[in-house]
């Protein structure tokens, strides 16, 4: 699993930083490093750019995995530089930014936009593969998720926009139902194309979604 991020326009970063002139930069060593949006290189590039724009960069770090609970310890190693800053700029996904803002009392400002949860299908090619709908139908669709692979998230078959097996929205993109049909055919399970999918429950886990593990489940992991 990768959280796919994209840099915010520099102007938007500057707008967020309008209130301060001392900045600490945090990158992430996991997804944002793979995506080349928040690895060491990008953090250092941004550092220079901000300095050229007249900011004082009090320090920087690339936390191994910005979203996990070790973030607190990693950030602790830079306490002085963080305390010296008036804003923390994150080059991580929104999970990393939120993890930091739970812990720090300083304003945490995202330098990246979080686009989707994706799979790296082949090197450098990231595709959205799950919308976290909470009602997985992959068992009926030959392992291809139409909710993400179809532009409209249809579940009962293709719309009229299929064009030579591609999506009318983007001729480079396959029509999800052509893919599903072809794979079900290979698996000799074409009967599943007839399966009626009722409307999904949009409130299967109402927002904000929270799962609380029982104490004994937690102990198994510790």
């Amino acid at each position, binding site marked *: 699993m990768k959280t796919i991020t994209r840099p915010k326009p520099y102007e938007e970063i500057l707008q967020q930083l309008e209130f301060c002139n001392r900045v600490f930069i945090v990158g992430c060593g996991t997804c944002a490093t793979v995506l080349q949006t928040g690895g060491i290189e990008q953090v250092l590039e941004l550092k220079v750019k901000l300095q050229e724009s007249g900011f004082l960069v009090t320090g920087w770090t690339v936390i191994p995995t910005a979203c996990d609970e070790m973030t607190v310890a990693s950030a602790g190693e830079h306490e002085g530089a963080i305390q010296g800053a008036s804003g923390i700029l994150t080059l991580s996904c929104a999970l990393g930014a939120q993890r930091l803002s739970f812990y720090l009392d300083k304003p945490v400002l995202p330098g990246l936009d979080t686009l989707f949860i994706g799979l790296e299908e082949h090197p450098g090619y990231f595709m959205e593969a799950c919308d976290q709908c909470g009602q997985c139908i992959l068992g009926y669709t030959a392992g291809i998720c139409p909710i993400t692979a179809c532009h409209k998230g249809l579940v009962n078959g293709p719309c*009229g926009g299929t064009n030579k097996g591609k999506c009318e929205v983007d001729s480079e993109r396959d029509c999800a139902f052509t893919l599903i*049909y072809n794979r079900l055919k290979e698996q000799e399970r074409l009967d599943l194309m007839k399966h009626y999918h009722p409307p999904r429950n949009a409130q299967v886990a109402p927002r904000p979604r929270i799962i609380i593990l029982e104490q004994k489940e937690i102990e198994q992991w510790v």
Partner: protein
Amino acid sequence: MGMTFKQILDSGKFVVTAEIAPPKGTDLEKMNHHIELLKDKVDALNVTDHQSSVMRFPSLGGCLAVKERGGEPILQMTCRDRNQIALQSDLLFAYTRGIKNVLCLTGDAMTVGDHKQARGIFELDSVQLLRAIDFLEECKDLGGNDLVGGATFCKGAIVTPEADPWEPQSYKFEKKVDAGAEFFQTQAVYDMDNLTRFMDYARRFPVKILAGIVLLTSARMAKYMTDNVPGIFVPQDLIAQLNSVPKGGGLQKGIEIAGRMIAVLKQDSICDGVHIMAINREEVVPEILKAAGLNGHVD
């Protein structure tokens, strides 16, 4: 008051429907003119629902205008802009105002329209919308709650006979049939062999098929459609015919082609009727009917 659309479908006569588009704004003059012009010449008038994802006056409002003028409206309803509460509520309203025909559509992608930043809802799809109408007929809603007074509709859907690939489309078509679609209006078909092949398949199902006729107005338009619109194939000889006329004669040739196609479909009983889409040229529909040898008025 003549027959309802449902009765006309059941009567076995060759059915003719046409489509009108509500305006982008509140000036209804042109739409109302088209309604006056066509309401007695076709069996029912479809009113498009933010066609091509372009925000307009609503289909429901257009259907009311058809109804007020004594015509028979078909409410086009896409799943793009409304969640299930809004869809059901609009159906209840439609029913109380005598709008009894619904064409259930998925809806175009938001990205093709003029509100590219808007969210496409697609909470229901066209098959689920067809089934949702069954609930209303049983005085229930999709939440399983009782209604004080239900609603029944003549339910329609669309199909693309020349979809490429065809097989996934055929499964969707059959799901729509299973969901209770009574009539289908097809995507435009210009190749009579392809349509006949589709009809050989579709005849197996207890549904009425109205072949889509999109008026061609120039060779350029025909070429554009065949190259860019999914599921539309304009044969080379039709493009050549449109090319053969002097500049400015494309529309007249298009009317002739559409009329000739309709006449063949009717004469050879290839399908149950036609659905004429004279996009932005609604005023020439009577000429198309005339070219088809249809009297151009509904009994």
